[in-house]
């Protein structure tokens, strides 16, 4: 069946989203076509505002509302300037903020090193992080990149770049997942959990 161009356009656009195949894209498109309420309009407006209404914070490179001088976290007076937590993506900031366990600042790299895909240090906000440290006032950098090959490579690279600046560099502890079974843990997780063991007294 030959579809009218507007329908086909939306199907094509939706199927470019991660996790959405052509079937799901068609289903969503027909759903929107028949939706009687404001959903299609609301969706269109939200999509248009997504780019125009957001910007990167010029200090930490987290995503923030457009027109702000800096993001809410960088602006807050209740947080410590001395500790900066370095993450790959804005979603990681959200996850850490939900814990309520961190009261320092953040730095969002906007990705991780991936030498095979050709993602190099210049493609990340590494230079900006080094400038932040050089500017002074930061005592500790917590590396909170993902526990993956790319996350490890990024952490090792940052360590190499940051240590000469005289700042303390730490890495999030890696261990066994809560609710996980010891017998299913891989070598790497087990060894790192062992290395990061803690006194119980």
């Amino acid at each position, binding site marked *: 069946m030959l579809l009218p161009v507007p329908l086909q356009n939306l199907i094509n656009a939706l199927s470019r989203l991660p996790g959405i195949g052509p079937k799901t894209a068609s289903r969503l498109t027909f759903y929107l076509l028949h939706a009687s309420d404001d959903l299609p309009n609301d969706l269109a407006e939200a999509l248009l505002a997504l780019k125009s209404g957001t910007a990167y914070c010029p200090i930490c490179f987290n995503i923030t509302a457009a027109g702000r001088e800096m993001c809410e976290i960088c602006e807050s007076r209740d947080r410590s300037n001395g500790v900066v937590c370095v993450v790959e993506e804005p979603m990681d900031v959200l996850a850490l903020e939900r814990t309520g366990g961190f009261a320092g600042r953040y730095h969002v790299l906007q990705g991780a090193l991936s030498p*095979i895909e050709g993602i190099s240090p210049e493609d990340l906000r590494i230079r900006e992080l080094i400038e932040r440290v050089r500017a002074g006032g930061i005592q500790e950098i917590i590396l909170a990149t993902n526990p993956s090959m790319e996350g490890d490579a990024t952490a*090792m690279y940052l360590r*190499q770049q940051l240590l000469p600046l005289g700042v303390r560099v730490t890495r999030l502890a890696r261990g066994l997942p809560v609710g996980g079974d010891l017998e299913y843990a891989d070598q790497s997780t087990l060894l790192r959990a062992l290395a990061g063991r803690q006194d119980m007294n």
Partner: protein
Amino acid sequence: MRAEAVVLRHTDWGEADRLLWLFTRELGKVRAIAKGVRKPRSRKAGHLEPFTRVGLMLAHGRDLLIVTQAEAVDAYLPLRDNLVRLGYALYVVELLDRFTYEEGENSSIYRLLVDTLSRISTEETAALAVRYFEIRLLDLVGFRPQLFTCVGCGAVIRAEDQFFSAEHGGVLCPSCGPRHAGARPISMATLKYLRHFQRSNYTDAQRAHLTGTLDRELEAIMQYYVTYILERGLNTPAFLRRVRADEMRSRGNESEETAP
């Protein structure tokens, strides 16, 4: 079906799955889906990180193979704690990935890959294992360079500095060399090395002492040859050069004699 494999690379797939490129002992290079591995409590995830050697159970899905079980045989952990070793391992994996296709079992390539990864993670100088890997891989994928007779006139190559032509796949004698555009000078020392690697098993290959200078020339020649065959450059050498330079700087450049 049971198989053993090295994970070459992966990409996110669907909501929580990953598509893996595997080099298996039994089937050569294949792609397979690992379901749910992006969830933090996945039992398989840690066993399927890039360049882990892993025992697998594979099942046939609709289009692709599906990983139903995974248990790491060797995670080559030292590679994950040292940027230079990591860089070499990534280079090895990229080179193998670019030179191989999904064309069935090749246990010699598999053997070479796992041996090389374990050498890079355990030996003091990773460079030797990588140079050896390059020359053996070229053999196994059908691009063995001609190093004993001139590819221009057929004359036997003598013990003097020569030229190397990627286009003609081998050495050119001093009289043919200058007449071929693109041919590069190659020193006798470097050529000796390549020949030695081409004819030796790894134990014998290791007897040769690889200096930093020699390693750089070998690397440059191989880079030139490989780039010509693949028709485009690799991504990992830039990363490797950079982390190696950083490491040299932090060690105060003491390592001209032995390649890192």
